[in-house]
């Protein structure tokens, strides 16, 4: 037993890289929306890069620490408190039994990822530890965390590599590949798509981002026969307002798809919050493939890390012991 949930935040779920190979049976891939953050926090902690992390939307959790461990956050940046001390995002933090870990609200970005040394121990369902709340499958009992939940992690001796995760760069330009029904949309619709700002509405969640902006009319029809959906599919129903399908999407959909978001731009897209705006830029599938491979190579390299210069977050145990000995 590693943590007890005191405050579950707004929408906190266990996610790994996703539940693949079962889309033909209708299972959404789910998984961490910011795939880069999920991998980076695991790399920092020395975990398997597919290990389960806690994804928190807009607001973090408060956890009672039940056993000594090491944690870190990646993705959206929020204040981190261990009892009264504050720590930075992206650094490994040693926690001691009895302490309280509090992660505040997201101040930059919208999805905060908490990793723990060894990875969170939740059962694998169809090869993945990811939660799909709509079908109640996977993760922690198929649902978001609640007060009183007890979270386990796999045993792992953490070794510091003297690194921290760099702060991520925000960007509102999203590159998109022409989609399955691009031809259903005329020049005017395409001009609007690439020449306007679209706002992320509050009806946006892990299933998809609903956008609001100039209407995109498909002269060739908005309704099509149901087809498999993809991560980042930009579908346009009759009201002309695009919806970007994300990790918890239904695996089949019947709306015309004007485009697909380039996978390399998914991490910056999913860190956007309702109320923020996006602009779109066209990219062809070959160029996008190059970018995606480069991004995966960068994640695997040390490019998103920088040297850890302040080791206070890791020396806490000895510091605490000394202060206790001195009776401070």
């Amino acid at each position, binding site marked *: 037993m590693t943590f007890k949930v005191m405050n579950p935040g707004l929408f906190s779920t266990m996610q790994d890289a996703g539940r693949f190979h079962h889309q*033909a049976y209708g299972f959404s891939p789910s998984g961490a929306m910011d795939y880069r953050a999920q991998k980076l926090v695991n790399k920092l902690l020395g975990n398997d890069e597919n290990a389960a992390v806690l994804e928190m939307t807009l607001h973090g959790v408060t956890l009672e620490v039940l056993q000594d461990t090491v944690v870190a956050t990646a993705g959206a940046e929020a204040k981190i408190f261990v009892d009264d001390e504050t720590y930075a995002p992206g650094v490994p933090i040693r926690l001691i039994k009895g302490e309280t870990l509090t992660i505040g609200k997201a101040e930059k970005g919208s999805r905060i990822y908490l990793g723990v040394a060894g990875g969170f121990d939740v059962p694998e369902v169809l090869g993945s530890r990811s939660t799909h709340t709509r079908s109640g499958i996977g993760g922690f009992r198929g649902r978001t965390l609640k007060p009183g939940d007890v979270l386990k992690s796999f045993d792992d001796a953490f070794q510091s590599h003297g690194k921290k995760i760099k702060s991520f760069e925000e960007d509102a330009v999203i590159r998109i590949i022409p989609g*399955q029904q691009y031809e259903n949309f005329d020049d005017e619709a395409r001009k609007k798509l690439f020449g306007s700002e679209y706002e992320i509405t509050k009806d946006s969640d892990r299933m998809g981002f609903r956008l609001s902006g100039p209407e995109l009319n498909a002269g060739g029809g908005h309704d099509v*026969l149901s087809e498999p959906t993809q991560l980042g599919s930009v579908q346009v129903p009759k009201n002309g307002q695009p919806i970007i399908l994300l990790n918890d999407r239904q695996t089949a959909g019947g709306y015309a798809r004007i485009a697909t978001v380039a996978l390399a731009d998914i991490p910056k897209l999913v860190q956007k919050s309702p109320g923020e705006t996006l602009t779109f830029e066209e990219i062809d599938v070959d160029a996008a493939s190059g970018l995606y491979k480069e991004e995966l190579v960068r994640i695997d390299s040390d490019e998103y890390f920088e040297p850890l210069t302040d080791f206070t977050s890791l020396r806490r145990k000895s510091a605490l012991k000394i202060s206790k000995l001195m009776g401070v």
Partner: protein
Amino acid sequence: MKVSRYSENSVTVYLGDDISEETNKKLVNLKKELEDQAHEGVTEIVISYTSLIVYFDVFKTSGEALEKVLGEIDLEALQGKPFEYRLVEIPVCYGGDYGPDLGRFEEDGLSPEDVIDMHSDTEYLVYMLGFMPGFPYLGGLDEKLFKARLDDPRTSIPAGSVGIGGKQTGMYPFTSPGGWNLLGRTPIPLFDEERDPQILYEAGDRIVFKSIDEAAYNKLEEQVASGEYEVNITMREAE
């Protein structure tokens, strides 16, 4: 055959423009052929009404390589191969609390018995799965049973519910909101994590609903609770 790419890690093949058993058979054949060829890097193949999507690992193969593979497949030759599929029997208790909309067909001149007779013992083709895990898009519903969805959708439909929405019949593997006319319910879990297979059917298979009474439903429900139930699945070969 139209082969295109709409994302970095997938290739999409279109083999038709409308819903037809023939297109479905072609897609299933093509999927089997690709699985048999076992290309390095192919991770997942998903079928829909008219298309098939092949997902791949971008570090093990490429869109160009898979487009070439697909271009070399002789679809006509595949059509001549024997075609095996599963016939899955789904026991359904029609009417009562399980099928509150069975009586709504009276307005179309069909008694509950007529609806049950027409709906059960008919083989429905699984064109694809989607909407929710294990939800089959079925073809083969008798036109007389076409019925518009409810004006006021229910907020919660129990898992196992069998119904009709417009021109389609199907079943809800999970409790969910929905506007279908409910005819009955099956006690068999449509997704069972402990079962092999966890989902009983895939695209190209066929489903037949078998009418059971409440006593049989209750007995099956007990067997499901104890984990000792059986589903009748027959392997068939198409002409």
